[in-house]
């Protein structure tokens, strides 16, 4: 008896020590489905009866009911397709996505942004054959933004846009009135912005001119200021940052941001957990802030009158770029249900759904100008500004040009913090000194990553 127990325990020990690495006893359930990652036949799958596609999206809880409605409508119109949707938290979405792809089990379709990783690993299906087959008109979307955002380096389309948002300056009209500051005009300069910010700042009342310089995203990578100065964060293909991160324009912009921070007209970090239209701006404490269309509902709900205006430019600049971003749908390159997925993608990017999004508490701003016009959105004082911006020239956001930005973006952010918002009582660093060094470090890392490919 004792011997027997000892052997059992020793066995338990061995297995325990290997911490569960050899337990295939449990796979007695019909494991015949050999749907491993072999299937390379792109268009051969014809739905026999009902095709179920897996669809993942990373939107917040408030958007989910709308998706459920859309899927119901789609399934009614397409009885042969079922959509199985999962709402995956944004925090962890890409880890999950890439783990699933590595195992050949990714969803048929997903929505999101920052897709450079997935693109370069070949997980995203090119859509050209579907676009050609259906004679699908890509010019109905905002252009050139959609092409810039969704075409790969090879010129093929890799996704359809769900929505569109530009970056504008939202401003609090009540604060402008209260302190007797004239509203900004579309052709204002960075000096005008500085001036207005100074006049709006009243720390004793908890009011600050702006929170635009809270982070490098709000101040630089998430808006067109640097582009309109004739500079950029990186080359168009995202492979060069030396000569961009340390360009005279970039140094000038950092100096400008530092000045506003030193003067205290940019809200101190103690006031902000979040900047932009999601943060204290909506509480009426910030004069001018970074505004996206995604924050439109919050700004509409605010207790003050809000205005929107294009970004200020450097005096004398004749450049006119807008910053445009699109949340998009992507198809799994290894999906065996590409036809059904394409149908669902087309549906979610259709004018009908765009109109419905406007009618449903303005879930998102449709990616096609025709819907904006049909719905008369330019009548709205704020939306008018977005529409004007959407027709301007634009560039791809820096994080979307090359996946290496994901690796070096942190260095840029750190430099920004050191120069503009030094923490823990550290002193402000000189951009002319810091940026050339950071540019070298970033470039070295990018070169190293590119060499590994």
């Amino acid at each position, binding site marked *: *008896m*004792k011997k027997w*127990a*000892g052997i059992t*325990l*020793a066995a*338990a*020990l*061995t*297995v*325990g*020590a*290997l*911490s*569960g690495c050899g*337990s*295939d006893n*449990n*796979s007695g359930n019909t*494991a015949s*489905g050999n749907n491993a990652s072999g299937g390379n036949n792109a268009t051969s799958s014809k739905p026999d009866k009902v095709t179920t596609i*897996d669809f993942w999206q*990373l*939107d*917040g*809880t*408030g958007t*989910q009911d709308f998706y459920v409605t859309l899927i119901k409508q789609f399934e009614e119109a397409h009885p042969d397709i079922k959509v199985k*949707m*999962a*709402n*995956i*938290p*944004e*925090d*962890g979405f890409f*880890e*999950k996505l890439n*783990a*699933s792809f*590595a*195992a050949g*089990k990714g969803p048929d379709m997903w929505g999101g942004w920052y897709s450079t990783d997935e693109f370069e690993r070949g997980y995203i299906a090119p859509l050209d054959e579907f676009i050609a087959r259906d004679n699908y008109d890509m010019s109905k979307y905002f252009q050139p933004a959609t092409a810039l955002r969704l075409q790969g380096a090879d010129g093929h389309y890799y996704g359809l846009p769900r929505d569109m948002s530009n970056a504008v300056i939202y401003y609090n009209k009540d604060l402008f009135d209260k302190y007797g500051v004239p509203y900004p005009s579309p052709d204002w300069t960075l000096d005008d912005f500085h001036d207005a910010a100074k006049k709006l700042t009243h720390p004793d009342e*908890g009011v600050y001119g702006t929170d635009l310089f809270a982070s490098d995203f709000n101040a630089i990578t998430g808006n067109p200021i640097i582009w309109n100065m004739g500079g950029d964060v990186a080359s168009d293909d995202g492979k060069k940052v030396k000569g961009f991160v340390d360009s005279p324009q970039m140094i000038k912009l950092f100096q400008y941001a530092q000045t506003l921070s030193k003067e205290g007209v940019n809200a101190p970090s103690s*006031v902000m957990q979040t900047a932009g239209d*999601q*943060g*204290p*701006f*909506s*509480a009426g*404490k910030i004069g001018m802030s970074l505004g*996206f269309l*995604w*924050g439109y509902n*919050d700004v509409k*709900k*605010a*207790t003050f009158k809000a205005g929107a205006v294009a970004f200020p430019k450097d005096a004398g600049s004749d450049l006119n770029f807008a910053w445009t971003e699109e*949340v998009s749908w992507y198809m799994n390159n290894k999906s065996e249900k590409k036809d059904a997925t394409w149908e669902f993608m087309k549906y979610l990017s259709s004018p009908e759904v765009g109109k419905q999004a406007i009618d449903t508490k303005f879930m998102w701003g449709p990616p096609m100008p025709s819907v904006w016009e049909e719905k008369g959105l330019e009548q709205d004082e704020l939306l008018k500004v977005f529409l004007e911006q959407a027709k301007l020239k634009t560039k791809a956001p820096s994080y979307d040009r090359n996946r290496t930005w994901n690796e070096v973006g942190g260095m840029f952010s750190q430099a920004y913090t050191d120069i503009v918002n030094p923490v823990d009582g550290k002193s402000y660093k000189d951009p002319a000194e810091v940026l050339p060094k950071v540019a070298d470090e970033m470039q070295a890392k990018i070169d190293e990553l590119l060499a590994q490919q």
Partner: protein
Amino acid sequence: MTFRIRKFAGLTVSHLVLAALSLACIIPFLWMISTSLKTKAAMWEFPPKWIPKNPLWHNYHDAFTLAPFGTYITNTLTLEILTIAGQVISCTLIAYGFSRFRFRGRDTLFFLMLATMLIPEQVTMIPTFLFYSKLEWIDTYLPLVVPAFFGNAFYVFLMRQFLLTIPKDLDEAAKIDGANEFQILWKVLVPILRPSLTIIVVYTFTGVYNDFLSPLIYLNSPEKFTLAIGLANFVSSRSTEWNLLMAASTVILLPLLVIYYMAQKNLIGGIASLGIKG
């Protein structure tokens, strides 16, 4: 007299320090509760108001109707029960083996097991994912529960160390009375092991409760999601409902408080009594 004054002063200082520390610990909780009762705009008021003028109790209702939290709670509890059972059974058996039996290679095996603690989870994430996906276990609870039945290096270590402090005389006494190895473990040792078992239960409970990445990666069907995933869905870079997030967090925190409260005695006291007379 001076001694008493000094003692009194010492006590006062230590109490003040403790009070300050507990205040530092409790402020985030109070902040969470306060935010959960505010409108989105009032959250950003500066200086912040601790007690909102019109507390919005319906935030709690909104938070729990916006997402199927009932399902999430059931799922999380199912996972909890299975995982805790797995850890308690496997770790006790393994630790019993390591502490009470002599066999060739025992200590090597033990250190090999401890060495697995050195490997960060991120490193094994993709290989284990591939492994489970070959078993067709994706979108089931199996990858989350089954490993619990194969022990956990840290808990085994904890239990083994604890078992080593229990005199073998107890085992021998039981053996003389005719008990076999399982009876010794179950009838004699497990009752003494209660404090460390409690530690395993509480740690496993909080571990499973807070685990975000594993359920996120292995589960695809929303009806199988856990609380941690449901909570994370409130946060999005496009729009975050902080007030609802805080309302949901407040409620979701309660079970943890209850568990800690119940286990408190065993967690703090425990080890003192060892059931043998001098």
